[in-house]
């Protein structure tokens, strides 16, 4: 079965991002496909490569990036949410004249249409939030 996941909260503050990750791993281990994880609202902060969590704690961004690399999960950050929260890739840097880039490997910025498309194409769309 093909799953899509919506994540509405940032890393560490709420358990939503942890729950979504554990669900995605279990879905893949169960033989399902996780086609896309769409990060909306503060959820886009999951994609920041500037985090340095304590060494004895989980590294939420790296966990997601590894999932994308190993299982081909499409990690999409909502562009409008990124603009409000300061998540920048090359295109956004040039467009909005910013000095830095902070979107981690495996994540890409795109529009809300990617969420709707995921809802249409996946067999199940599942939301994790606050």
């Amino acid at each position, binding site marked *: *079965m093909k*799953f899509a996941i919506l994540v*509405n909260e940032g890393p560490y503050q709420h*358990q*939503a991002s942890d*729950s979504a990750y*554990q*669900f995605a*791993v*279990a*879905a893949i*281990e*169960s033989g*399902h496909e996780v086609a896309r994880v769409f990060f909306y609202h503060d959820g886009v902060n999951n994609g920041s490569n500037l985090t340095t969590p304590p060494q004895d704690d989980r590294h939420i961004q790296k966990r997601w990036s590894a999932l994308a690399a190993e299982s081909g999960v499409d990690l999409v950050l909502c562009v409008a949410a990124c603009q409000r929260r300061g998540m920048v890739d090359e295109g956004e840097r040039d467009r909005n004249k910013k000095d830095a880039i902070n979107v981690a490997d495996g994540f890409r910025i795109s529009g809300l249409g990617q969420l709707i498309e995921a809802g249409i194409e996946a*067999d*199940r*769309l*599942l*939301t*994790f*939030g*606050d």
Partner: protein
Amino acid sequence: MSTLNIVNKSPFEKRSLDQCITRTSSGDALLLIEDAVVAAVSGTAYDAPLTEAGQNMKLYVLEGDLAARGFADSEMVNGFTPVDYKGFVALVAEHDRVHSWL
């Protein structure tokens, strides 16, 4: 055409569990995750409404979240089935849609 309802907040903090229960059909299922798992622990005001809700729908609790908060499966209200994350995945696959009561 049944719905998997997911609640993630303690009913002592937020009203989402109460609000969910009044809007479910027989054949739906309820899964408690994150802080909501405390509702599945017996000895609270939620024993009765959840036991009643269990007459019409299946009740599940995510056991990792229960263990995280220091509770054992044996302390659950009658009618709850503990599931791990793979069980959670299976529930999503078995039901026609998922409604997260955020």
